[in-house]
């Protein structure tokens, strides 16, 4: 495929179904789109000690996030330079002071540099040292650690980290600054979901404010039926506090507002969100004022978007302190991970909120997610129909938006999705033949 063929699949106000259905495009996405964008690898708190590693897959490549002896973090390809064996096969662990291939005992320093191998003399006079196999484990060239969030870009093409994310980094700041100590820790495990749909359906839905009323009707109706008749000032259990707002109407979601940013990023709920009504915690707020000053603390706590999307792999919620990671596995299969943060210096209740929210909304057993997942999988099947090759993104489209890469809009404006697809074309075609 050439640049023009790919670009023709995304029009100003609609996208072609091949973006969701074509296995050929998915392979091209791995080669170009995912390799040209900055993708979330993991959090530094997952690799605390030298030799700690976490194995992940990005753009179809096996990667290792590794804590170095000097405290820095590197991302290496999980491949022995000799025959290609994966150096580790557990999802996480500690390798000690060096990697040792289980196959022929080639060893590498934590930064991937070659250390030793058996029968070294057998390589005297050969080309080994001069070729890739003599260079050790290959490192991912572009890695950024921003306030303990680790991102990688596999290709040289595309903007640097700061330019790529721009203002979206303020959303990471908000997550971190909700800790009076300015530190987060991943805790409580990860909920992993396999969804039989293309990754874009999930990513669009993160910015879809018009589905909750119809998609989640059964869950919110049941919650309201169970809770009705209670007085308004009766303190809600955390589960009700988190589920009931899903039933908010179109007007609520429209008024929450949104902001789109260059490169596909967005913040949904710039005015308020379904998370704004959680019970206040006076002691915690006092500790935040002590740490940041009254004005700054109020700013931090007041900002409570529905979702901040670090396109294309990470969705953040500042409150509750939860993130989702989107890992495409195949054209019609996507892994969704939901991780919880503990904000250091904040009360346990905040961490409970993160875990409870992830469990209620992002677990394979979530009654909220069941309807989402069913509909994503339904779209994957429905798009095979003839008679309409396109997916509509027309709501609130205005020609003028094409000239602006940052803008604040109403919360139900599909520009949040149009913005994702415009970035998709950009990074897909960046290094493609014209």
């Amino acid at each position, binding site marked *: 495929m050439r640049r023009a063929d790919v670009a023709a699949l995304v029009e100003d106000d609609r996208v072609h179904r091949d973006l969701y259905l074509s296995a050929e495009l998915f392979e091209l996405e791995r080669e170009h789109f995912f390799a040209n964008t900055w993708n979330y690898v993991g959090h530094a708190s997952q690799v605390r000690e030298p030799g700690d590693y976490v194995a992940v897959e990005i753009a179809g490549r096996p990667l290792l996030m590794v804590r170095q002896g000097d405290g820095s973090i590197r991302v290496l390809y999980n491949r022995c330079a000799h025959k290609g064996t994966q150096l580790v096969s557990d999802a996480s662990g500690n390798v000690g002071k060096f990697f040792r291939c289980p196959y022929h005992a080639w060893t590498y320093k934590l930064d991937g540099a070659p250390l030793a191998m058996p029968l070294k003399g057998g390589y005297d006079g050969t080309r080994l040292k001069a070729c890739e196999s003599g260079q050790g484990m290959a490192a991912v060239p572009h890695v950024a650690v921003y306030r303990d969030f680790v991102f990688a870009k596999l290709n040289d093409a595309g903007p640097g980290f700061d330019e790529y994310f721009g203002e979206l980094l303020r959303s990471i700041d908000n997550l971190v600054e909700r800790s009076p100590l300015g530190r987060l820790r991943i805790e409580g495990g990860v909920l992993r979901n396999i969804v039989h749909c293309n990754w874009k359906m999930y990513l669009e839905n993160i910015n879809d404010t018009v589905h909750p009323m*119809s998609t989640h009707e059964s869950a919110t109706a049941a919650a309201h039926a169970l809770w009705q008749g209670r007085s308004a000032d009766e303190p809600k259990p955390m589960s009700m506090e988190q589920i009931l707002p899903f039933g908010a109407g179109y007007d609520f979601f429209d008024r929450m507002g949104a902001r789109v940013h260059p490169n596909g990023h967005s913040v949904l709920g710039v005015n308020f969100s379904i998370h704004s009504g959680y019970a206040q915690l006076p002691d915690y707020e006092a500790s935040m004022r002590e740490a940041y000053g009254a004005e700054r603390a109020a700013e931090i706590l007041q900002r409570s978007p529905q979702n901040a999307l670090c396109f294309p792999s990470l969705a953040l919620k500042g409150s509750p302190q939860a993130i989702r990671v989107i890992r495409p596995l195949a054209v019609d299969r996507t892994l969704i991970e939901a991780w919880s943060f503990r904000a250091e210096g904040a009360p346990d209740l905040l961490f409970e909120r993160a875990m409870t929210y992830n469990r209620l909304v992002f677990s394979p057993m979530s009654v909220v997610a069941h309807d989402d997942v069913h509909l994503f999988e339904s779209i994957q099947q429905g798009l095979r129909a003839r008679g309409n090759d396109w997916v509509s993104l027309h709501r609130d489209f205005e020609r003028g938006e094409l000239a602006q890469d940052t803008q604040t809009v109403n919360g139900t404006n599909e520009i949040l999705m149009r913005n994702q697809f415009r970035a998709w074309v950009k990074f897909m075609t960046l290094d493609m033949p014209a």
Partner: protein
Amino acid sequence: MNAGPVIIERELCDFVAHEARLLDARRFDEWLALFAANGRYWIPLQGAEQAEGAAHNALADEDSLLLSLRVQRLKNPRAHSQHPVSRCQHVLQRSALTHADHAAGRYELATPFIYVESRGERQLMLAGTARHRLVRSAQGLLIELKRIDLLDAGTALPAIQLFP
């Protein structure tokens, strides 16, 4: 005259089998009624390794309010993910009585199982051990805790819509 331990053990094992049969028959209201007011349905993310009270997440951790929500939702024709409907089958191994306090009427049982959930063309199979904490009350035996230790709770899973 009190029932002997063998008769009680038989009663407890029958209760566990009955609980699974209610789920397989989609008799969810009757199933809910087996839980004590403070009853809990819990599927820890680390399976059998997870200590009770540890600050670690779960696939499900439900009090009677959340269990009722689940059951109410399943009755709603607009529970979209139930078209087609999910069906389940528990295949239980013999329960082992792991704790008995006859004086207090409190018992714990461990029941290894295979669970199959079917929906349309897709089938999901899970293996694990159900751990029941039962208490004898005026209404008969009630579930204080049903803890389900899955073999693969921490792996990537598709939707599990009913009740392992």
